[in-house]
Each structure stands twice: as structure tokens, then as C-alpha cells.
């Protein structure tokens, strides 16, 4: 298995947990960003995570996480790694995907202003503004309820977060809003959020991805 940045030092409990071979492989796009946190989250909900840096690794997965990070850096790395076209194809075919922050930006059909030129797979019918809350000093933690997520309010960190400015299709279901703006949405096999549940250690939306992956595997 490909190493992740910093992973050599990781001894967090559960990192080496044995998972049965029939559990579906779920990729974490491992070009840049908080790949390790998403890997832990997928393990915590009983999935088999695998980093994806090449088209061959993408072929092997039944679902994928597009992590948080810098969307411009991830966009460029997608193209330079030859992953941009294959990823767009898999997403169009309906592969389940969870995107957080930068991941949501890359899934957005429209971006506000000049950012709309950023190459990305798209597929989620929303218009999103990058860095909508201001510089890092405006980043914040907050708790709120998410539709379809049991067990109390979601722990969420918004870190130089984007904002969904418009939902462009009625098939987009808004799971949660903060200050009137959607922050977690679902459209078919796409689950996306402007915040980072994985930084707060809240794995319940990753469980939702797991349900989508298992449902797809059973079709």
C-alpha cells in the first residue's frame, strides 16, 4: 500500500485494523490535503481505504473521497497525474463520492468569478464561492444537525471554507445549512460538504458514503 505523507510515524489505534477482503475498497484521492484524516474516518466506519494517486489505483475502488486541501493544487495535480479524465468518467458513471471543502469545490458545476476556470470534474449542481468567509482568522468550529445523520449535532470545522451560493437543480438535497447557506448536500451518489467533519473526528457522513458504496456494490 502506498504511504501517505507523515504516515510512517502513525501509530494511532485502528490504523492497522484487519478488514475482511469482501469489504469494498474506497479510495482517498491522495494528491494533496488531509488524506490521513479521511483514511482514519473510513477505517472507523468499517471500510477499506486506499490512497489513489494513479489511474490504476482509481480503477480498483468502488467509491472515493475527495479530501480537503488547496483546490488549485489538487486540480493541477489531477491533470499532471493523468487522473482528471478517468476520475470524471467514474463520477459520471455514478461512483459514490464524498467531498469535503476543496473536494466540494472540485465537484461543483459552477464556481463564482474567475475560479470557474479551475479544471475540475464537477457533477454536483451547485454554484460555490471559494474562500467565502475570509482569511484563516475567520475559520470557525460550529455544531449543527444534519438531515439523515443520527446521534446529535455534527462536529464541524470550517477552514477557509467555501460557501454554496446557489443550488442549481431540484435533485440536490440540502442536508444542513448554516446562516442560510447549504453546508452539506447530497445529489444521488454525491455527498459533499463545505466543512471538515474528519478534522473534528466525526465520521457519520463517511458512514453515509459507506451505505452508498455498499448499495452500489449490491446492484
Amino acid at each position, binding site marked *: 500500500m502506498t504511504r501517505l505523507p507523515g504516515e510512517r*510515524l502513525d*501509530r494511532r489505534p485502528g490504523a492497522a485494523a484487519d478488514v475482511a477482503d469482501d469489504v469494498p475498497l474506497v479510495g482517498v484521492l491522495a494528491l494533496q490535503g488531509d488524506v490521513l484524516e479521511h483514511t482514519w474516518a473510513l477505517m472507523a466506519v468499517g471500510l477499506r481505504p486506499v490512497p489513489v494517486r494513479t489511474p490504476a489505483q482509481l480503477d480498483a475502488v468502488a467509491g472515493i473521497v475527495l479530501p*480537503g486541501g488547496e483546490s488549485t493544487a489538487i486540480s493541477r495535480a489531477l491533470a499532471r497525474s493523468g487522473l482528471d479524465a478517468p476520475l470524471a468518467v467514474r463520477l459520471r458513471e455514478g461512483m459514490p463520492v464524498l467531498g469535503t471543502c476543496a473536494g466540494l469545490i472540485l465537484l461543483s458545476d459552477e464556481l463564482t468569478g474567475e475560479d470557474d476556470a479551475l479544471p475540475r470534474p464537477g457533477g454536483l449542481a451547485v454554484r460555490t464561492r471559494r474562500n467565502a468567509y475570509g482569511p*484563516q*482568522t475567520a475559520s470557525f468550529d460550529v455544531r449543527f444537525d444534519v438531515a439523515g445523520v443520527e446521534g446529535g449535532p*455534527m462536529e464541524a470545522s470550517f477552514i477557509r471554507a467555501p460557501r454554496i451560493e446557489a443550488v442549481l437543480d431540484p435533485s440536490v438535497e440540502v442536508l444542513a445549512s448554516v446562516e442560510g447557506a447549504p453546508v452539506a448536500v447530497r445529489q444521488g451518489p454525491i455527498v459533499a460538504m463545505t466543512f471538515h467533519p474528519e478534522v473534528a473526528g466525526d465520521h457519520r457522513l463517511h458512514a453515509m458514503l459507506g451505505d452508498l458504496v455498499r448499495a452500489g456494490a449490491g446492484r
Partner: protein
Amino acid sequence: MSAASNGHGPVTGSQRVKRGLADMLKGGVIMDVIDPEQARIAEEAGAVAVMALERVPADIRRDGGVARMSDPEMIESIIEAVSIPVMAKARIGHMVEAQVLQHLGVDYIDESEVLTPADEANHIDKQPFTVPFVCGATNLGEALRRISEGAAMIRSKGEAGTGNVVEATRHMRAITSGIRRLTQLDAAELHTAAKELAAPYDLVAEVAELGRLPVVLFTAGGIATPADAAMMMQLGADGVFVGSGIFKSGDPVKRGRAIVEATTHFEDPEVVARVSRALGEAMVGIEIDTIPPEQRYAGRGW
């Protein structure tokens, strides 16, 4: 900001969001830039953030004299130029430079030994700030003291402005082998280790439990080639700072992109080989032994 739709109201400046931004930079390259044009080149190359400063370390080293926080006008022009996070440097212990940088809206402050220290005994008390800090370290004890003061990210110091990676290697190995050693100690030995490291026991115990720092660990100081960057990643770095190495080279556009790709694919020699081809002149390197001890930056900080 008003309360959220339900649940609890938003909280800024938490340790979680400070450390969290560093998590988002992992696997990436942070580049020193001195003007908006360089900042745009860095963003285009795939940098995850830029460090705004008036002189890169190689020039600070050449010019000598006191090196201070950069002109706010210059920092603001770089914030305007790019959409990625902008970092800026404050002198060690200079809390007012840090207050100014927070006021300007930089995304991270580097309390940096590359600038001339303003306090020879104390670092900035970083906990009260909303903006997060990154600090340099040469070993595990130094890293843990900085985290205790509130640093949300650590980088190896290396020896900035030399184009020589040997000091960064020394510091990365000192930090990671120090961590590995802690994981082997029993409870009684951890108390002694905390004393030897001159670091708080709770942090020492946390590192022993996690097998890693509780914050992101980047590398810095002397990285000049794609292979240097990939080597640091293989040594356990979460990402790479490149100071003079890009814009003091013959072809910054190509070299910047090459270092980014080598950092992404740090375990794939095919990629590192491909991006290393025909990069033009690397920055001229300096043998560490030829630098008088008082001119070495890594010794600054306590």
C-alpha cells in the same frame, strides 16, 4: 458572526481550526515569494501556500544586518494576488510584529529564525492569537516547546538560504527518531524523558501515544531540487517549504512545478526522474562548514 441555524454558535481561533489549516496543506509545497508576480507563478506551479517576504533567505544571508518583518504593503499586495493561503514571518519573540501580521489578515505566521531574533530568551506566547503559527525546530524537545507555546505547525529549521539539505535531514531525523524512542518508553521513563527534552510531560505522553507530533510536521531549510523534496517526504515530512531554492534558480516556473510533482509522488522514482530533467541551474549551494557558527540560523531559538 451570528449563531448557527441550530446547535452551538461558531467559535474562531480554536486549536482545531489552527491545526486544521496545516492539515489542509499536507502533501504540498509552500514557496517563498517576494512580489505578486512570484506569488502567481507559485500558485500556477501548484504551491499550497506562499510565504511573503522582502528578501529570500539567500539574500538575507548575503546582505547581513538585521532582518525584520516585511512591509505590510508588500504583504497585502501578495494577499491580493493569490487565492491560496499567505504566510508571513515575524521575528522570534516579537509579539507586535505578529499582531500586525494578524491584523493584515495573513493566514499563518512563521515565527522564524531566518529573521533576526527580537528576544534572546522567549518565543511569542502564541496561544492568545486567532491566527495560527508555524515554528522551526531542530529536535523533538524544541518542537514540543513550540507546540506548548501554541504553535499549530512545526517545520524543521534546516539551514535556510544555503541550498544544502544536510541540516534539514539532520533535524528531520532528530525529530522522528526522538518520536520513535518515546514510543518505546514506559510510564516512569516518560517523566524522565520530559525532563531531558525540557518539554511538558503531557505533550511528551501524547507523542508517545500517537507515535507522531500532535501537529503537522513540514520540512524547511536548504531544499533545492525535486529529489531533495521527495527525500524529506520519505523521512516523514508532511510537506515542504522551499525558500530560495525556486526563485534563485535558473528556471523558477519549471523548478517550482517539478518540486511540487516530486512532493506529490515522493515514492515514485519514475516521476522524480522525469520532473528532474533539464531543470536548468539549481541555486548555488553553500557547504555548512564554511558558515561561521554565529551566521547559522538554526542556532536561533531556544
